[in-house]
């Protein structure tokens, strides 16, 4: 059972639709007991970092997430991925969950490329990662974001190129994060979700 953490921000139903389509048992929940019972956790997110962290904290879920990832896999998606890091500079400085070393900063691509980075971009594999099983070098996934993680290359399973190297998939121990939306990334995205479910 995967618990999709509901703290008031996010693309919960899209994620749930994708898991249902794959036949993966899941529950949308903000209940600590559900999160403790689940085998795996997904932290979705759409919007701005400070609001999302505040909502997660108001929902009383920061502690339980930090505790649970010691024993079970967690996947952050989009803003949920950014929240895995120590700190974000979106609208000032906000502390994140600190599960992966690094910060979240406004993208500064070369060649006058536009921000936000919206659209299908190709994954370039960096570090071995079980979530990339059956995913080929250069497979496309769907991005919508303006901020990106700044972290050591060893925490990055795959980058994409957008006038800079953008961490697309990050991983450290039990903690995984997709800057892209696997639930909107066609077959490649579904494969990544399936790989997560099979961990």
């Amino acid at each position, binding site marked *: 059972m995967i618990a999709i953490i509901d703290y008031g921000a996010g693309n919960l*139903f*899209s994620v749930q*639709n*994708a898991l*249902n*389509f794959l036949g993966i048992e899941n529950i949308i929940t903000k209940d600590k007991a559900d999160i403790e019972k689940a085998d795996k956790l997904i932290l979705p997110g*759409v*919007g701005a970092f400070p609001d999302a962290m505040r909502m997660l904290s108001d929902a009383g879920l920061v502690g339980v997430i930090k505790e649970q990832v010691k024993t079970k896999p967690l996947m952050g998606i989009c803003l949920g991925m950014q929240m895995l890091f120590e700190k974000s500079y979106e609208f000032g400085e906000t502390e994140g969950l600190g599960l992966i070393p690094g910060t979240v900063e406004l993208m500064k691509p070369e060649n006058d490329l*536009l921000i*936000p*980075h*919206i*659209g*299908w*971009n*190709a994954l370039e594999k960096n570090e071995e990662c079980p979530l990339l099983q059956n995913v*080929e070098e*250069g*497979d*496309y996934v*769907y991005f*919508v974001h303006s901020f990106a993680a700044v972290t050591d290359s060893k925490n990055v399973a795959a980058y994409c*190129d*957008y006038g800079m190297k953008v961490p697309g998939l990050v991983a450290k121990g039990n903690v995984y994060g997709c800057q892209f939306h696997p*639930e*909107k*990334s*066609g077959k490649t*995205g*579904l494969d990544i979700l399936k790989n997560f479910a099979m961990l």
Partner: protein
Amino acid sequence: MLAKRIIPCLDVRDGKVVKGINFVGIKEVGDPVECAAEYNDQGADEICFLDITATHEGRKTMVDVVRRTAQRVFVPLTVGGGISSVDDFRELLRSGADKVSVNSAAVRNPSLIKEAAEIFGSQCVVVAIDAKKKGDSWTVVVNGGRIDMNIDAVEWAQKAEELGAGEILLTSMDTDGMKQGFDIELLNAVCNKVKIPVIASGGCGTLQHFSDVFKETKASAALAASLFHYKELTVSEVKQHLKDNDIPVRNF
């Protein structure tokens, strides 16, 4: 590097896919959820539903179509047609749409673009512009081309960008349905004046038309309806053709 997108569009009325030429002579041709799933299998990068229903009942049907499609299709879903308020945006986004396109209501009430962008983010606000050549420039038309709003189409695209539009869906009423190619001149006029992605629409009839539009303009995506619907071309054929012409497309 971002891939150029191919977007099949489904015109939906009362929950059924319909298709007409030059916005008249409409006939029914299928179930929107099935059609969207098939396009997804063909490698569509995004699916667009255009709701041409006029009635309240029909609109509720559309929300249901969106919800059912979002359960089966895992690429971005854009829904437009008859959107006139922030509540319409909210309802469609909650049902599973990723983007909402707004056309005549935005022309009549431009602040709708700003309000929607502030609440939901620019990434989900698509401003659809139907443009028709008038002298040396293009005018904005609404109601399926029946009403000339006497607004310069290029200026309107710029204003939409300023107000927070995330994308422009640009349809040429001169080339739509004619299968003689996209309106390169109109697309260049708009693409050169805005920084947000422009989706080319209206006029494609052959594979060459797709490579032409990406070679000759800065369009980020190309949209087609009847061409895909009547299976004259498949999305995968178009993407293979683009790949053969060194235009970046998502593999499928």
